[in-house]
């Protein structure tokens, strides 16, 4: 027995070792991944990020070099700190703090010491850099905005975070990625593909030559330039008009679905999100939970559309054959159902046919229409589903599936939507607010603009999109193929005539533009917020929908101005001016321009936060912009309106 103890132990250990080897090398041996191998250094070669041009070829976004001072703490030798600090424009305290932080991170790996030097500082520093051992300058590429407009359209780029790296392994620490707007939705096109070099290193992180003579290395693929559908001048004009207001403006070219302008107010200068102050400024924008400058109201703002939605009800009624254009409804100052009344602005006893109903925005006319649609087959449940299907064929109540980075579905209710509130009985009067575009109906400005485009085209639309052209590519079919609505072409004329009359003698008669036949519809929408959990009504939203010219439309537009009171007061003016600007290229209604620049709604927006009781609608007075600011705005207006040479 005694002879066998060591004998058996040796064999047991041999078996144990071979099992362990089997586990490590055969069972657990992952296929060799160059990217996860810490013995291989990956050096990336970043391609030039593509430029962004507007529809007229004006350069909006380019690149600029940026210089970071990097430090490798182990290689630093005693230096003239005073001189170095003054060159970098930092104080000694900051120098020591940053240096220690870099050393804690790693004495061998480079850390950013000072980021985003200005070109001037760089020029001075470069001369003297050799004096400071252990420091060097790293060139990076940042965005350079050639314009101050379109922050919500263009978006911005920023460093990837850990979450993105985990989800999209292409990105490595320190890489830049489009965060919002076009930069985000066309990220892959703009960025190109970075090249990579694999370098064998030793454990001190020193390079000892290309890995396998570079057989796995790749060369970078340049980012492609893109042209977007935005007209920079129109965009700038829209942003200026919306100054001191909140809301969204979307202008679409009906014949192509191209977005001409996409204004979200308030907005900001895209340049503030570049360079040294990016994170500071971004935090500021992000934390502004009241004005929400990062919230793209033209795409994400879900509002009750109000009266412009009456156009939809008119179209559905004609398609379903429950109303004829000439059929009249008498308005007794409102619409009575049961013992309730929906009030109307019409004079008592006005007889409205369809054109008149649209022109005067008669609530009684559309309440009747809506009920007729729902009660067509005697079942309001079937009726509302039919109604919902027609409205949805205009792209309402769903995502538009376009190339914009953000969006909202809005809401077009059907019977299913009401099943919890009205489980059993369901009558057309239950949802009567939908008749006038309130109640459960909700849309975003872009959806409403698209609806205007659908009407302008008499029954079809192109999915609104922002891309006009990508170098060497054709646009996908989803943007070039017309989408037909469920309304026949012949039913559009009476509705369009009604919209035309709105401008001729209706609610927008004061907004007429010479030589342009504009068709439009005003909207005034009641809205409520909760202040200390008390439901409080605020001044109505001002909404406007229009297209022009009447024949062969060039532009369809939707404007929302929060708390602007009635439709033609703010939104109508903005729409008319944008239309004139787009079609004529110059402005005759300068009176409207001046009015818009002069008036601000900021005091209106401050009310719910003031903590004091306040009055709304008729009880308010408009705030006049200060002389100095008004002067600046006028100056800006002049540069925008200056005809191009």
């Amino acid at each position, binding site marked *: 027995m*005694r*002879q066998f*103890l*060591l*004998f058996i*132990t*040796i*064999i047991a*250990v*041999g078996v*144990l*070792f*071979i099992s*362990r*080897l*089997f586990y*490590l*090398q*055969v069972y*657990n*041996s*992952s296929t*060799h991944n160059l990217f996860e*191998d*810490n*013995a*291989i250094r990956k050096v990336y070669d970043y391609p030039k990020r593509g430029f962004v041009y507007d529809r007229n070829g004006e350069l909006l976004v380019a690149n600029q070099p940026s210089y970071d001072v990097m430090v490798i703490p182990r290689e630093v030798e005693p230096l003239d700190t005073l001189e170095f600090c003054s060159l970098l424009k930092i104080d000694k305290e900051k120098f020591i703090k940053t240096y220690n932080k870099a050393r804690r991170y790693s004495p061998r790996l480079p850390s950013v010491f000072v980021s985003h030097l200005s070109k001037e500082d760089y020029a001075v520093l470069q001369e003297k850099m050799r004096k400071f051992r252990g420091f060097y300058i790293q060139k990076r590429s940042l965005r350079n905005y050639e314009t101050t407009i379109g922050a919500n359209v263009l978006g911005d780029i920023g460093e990837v975070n850990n979450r993105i790296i985990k989800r999209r392994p292409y990105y490595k620490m320190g890489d830049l990625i489009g965060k919002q707007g076009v930069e985000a939705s066309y990220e892959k096109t703009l960025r190109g593909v970075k090249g990579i070099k694999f370098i*064998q*290193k*030793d*454990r*001190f992180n020193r390079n*000892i030559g290309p*890995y396998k003579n570079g057989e796995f290395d790749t060369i970078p693929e340049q980012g492609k330039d893109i042209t977007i559908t935005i007209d920079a001048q129109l965009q700038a004009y829209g942003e200026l008009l919306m100054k001191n207001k909140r809301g969204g403006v979307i202008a679409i070219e009906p014949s192509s679905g191209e977005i001409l302008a996409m204004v979200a107010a308030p907005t900001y200068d895209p340049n503030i999100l570049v360079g040294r102050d990016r994170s500071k400024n971004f935090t500021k924008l992000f934390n502004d939970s009241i004005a929400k400058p990062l919230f793209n109201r033209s795409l994400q703002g879900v509002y009750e559309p109000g009266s412009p939605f009456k156009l939809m009800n008119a179209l559905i009624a004609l398609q379903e054959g429950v109303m004829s254009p000439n059929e009249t409804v008498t308005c007794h100052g409102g619409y009575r159902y049961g013992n309730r009344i929906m009030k109307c602005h019409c004079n008592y006893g006005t007889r409205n046919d369809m054109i008149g109903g649209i022109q005067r925005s008669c609530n009684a006319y559309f309440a009747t229409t809506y009920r007729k649609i729902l009660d067509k087959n005697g079942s309001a449940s079937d009726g509302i589903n039919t109604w919902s299907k027609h409205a949805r064929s205009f792209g309402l109540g769903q995502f538009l599936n376009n190339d914009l980075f953000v969006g909202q579905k809005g809401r077009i209710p059907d019977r299913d939507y009401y099943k919890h509130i009205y489980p059993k009985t369901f009558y057309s009067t239950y949802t009567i607010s939908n008749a006038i575009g309130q109640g459960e109906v909700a849309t975003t400005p872009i959806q409403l603009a698209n609806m205007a485009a659908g009407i302008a085209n008499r029954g079809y639309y192109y999915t609104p999109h922002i891309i006009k052209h990508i170098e060497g590519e054709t646009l996908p079919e989803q943007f070039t193929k017309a989408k037909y609505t469920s309304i026949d072409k012949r039913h559009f004329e009476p509705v369009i005539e009604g919209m035309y009359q709105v401008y001729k003698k209706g609610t927008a008669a004061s907004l007429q533009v010479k030589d342009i036949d504009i068709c439009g519809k005003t909207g005034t929408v009641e809205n409520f917020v909760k202040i200390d959990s008390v439901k409080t009504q605020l001044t109505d939203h001002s909404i406007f929908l229009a297209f022009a010219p009447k024949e062969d439309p060039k532009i369809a537009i939707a404007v929302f101005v929060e708390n602007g009171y009635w439709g033609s007061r703010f939104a109508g003016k903005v729409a008319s001016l944008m239309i004139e600007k787009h079609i004529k290229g110059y402005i005759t209604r300068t009176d409207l321009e001046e009015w818009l620049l002069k008036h601000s709604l900021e005091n209106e927006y401050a009310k719910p936060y003031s903590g004091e009781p306040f009055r709304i609608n008729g009880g308010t007075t408009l705030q006049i912009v200060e002389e100095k600011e008004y002067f600046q705005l006028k100056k800006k207006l002049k540069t925008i309106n200056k005809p191009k040479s």
Partner: protein
Amino acid sequence: MVRDTNRHFKFDWITIILFFLLVGFGYLNILSASHTGNDISYFDLTQPFGKQLIFIFLTFGLIVLLLAIDAKFYERFSSIIYIIAMLSLVGLFVFGKNVNGATSWYAIGGMTLQPSEFAKMATALAVAKYVSDLNTNIKSFKDQIQIFIIIIIPAILVLLQNDTGSTLVYASFFFVLYREGLPKFYLAIGVALILISILSLKFGAIITSIMAFIFLLAFHFLSKKKIRIFESILIFIAAIAISFGVKFFYQSILQPHQKDRISLWLRLEKDPAKLEKMKQTFAYNLNESEKAISSGGVTGRGFMKGERTTGKFVPEQHTDYIFSTVGEEWGFLGSSFVVIIFVLLLLRILHLAELQKSQFSRVYGYGVASIIFIHFFINIGMVMGIIPTIGIPLPLFSYGGSGLWAFTILIFIFIKLDSNRINEW
């Protein structure tokens, strides 16, 4: 005449071939682990691989010398060799050179000599001599103490020089003594001690005590050979005492770095952040070495083609971590080959030892096998993360002249003794 021609072939050629296989393959791996750049000048004496090549050449001379000396010399002079070895260890306290925190080297000219490597061989001779003495009775407690003193002296000396790894080597003499008749009682105590220590650290003293109780109970009812109740209780109390003692030893006496190694080995640390930190600091070697071995796969990345070896990612790779080079460049096949060669060498020596007619030769042979085995076990076990990190070279494989020569002497004395077998009576 016939007898004379046969003389040459009385050396055990199997052992010699296995010996040279290990030395040769070891050299290739040292070359791979320590070369830099593409131009290799094989005799560059500033580089480990150059020096090792010289050491290997000199080994041939050493072997001829060892085999030329009369077999009886080793037995006769074993006491003197032992005394010289001990004096050389003591001398380190005065003349020693400190390398990596251990004062284990004499610096002679440009060379360094590590006497602790030779002390193992000297101790093996002394133990063989003492045990094989006709007056020694291994069953007597007095003689056990004497043998224990022979072994503990070099163990304590190297421990004082901060060479924990070499100290552990002396524990291997247990195998020798057990073979020669040390009571089973010691084996039981040894195994129980190791088990209780590991279990206490891993699961805590209370659970270990409960397990000990259940084990004793089971033993009481199942075994034919009854232990008395009184004894059982005594053993149980001892187990509890050891269990708590180990915990106390771990927490209060061990130095932080030793604690960390054990904690990592037994997977005691659960906090991933701390584990990550461990991997970057003291466990860096182990982590890199495991990665290197894993990346080898079945067939390896090829001689001189391992990324981690070329990039010098595993510190001390040409010495204690040489096996990770084998793992990365020669893969599962190459590594298993090395393990098998070691096992064959050990079994061959054991087999020869059992064939010896003289007790001195047998005990010495056992000593040789035990010493090589414990190196083999601790070194490869450590490199693969099976046992805690303990600095100890892989015999015949790791870089180092002292080590190579010491093991050459250790093995070839035995080959010489073995060749003299038929002359014994």
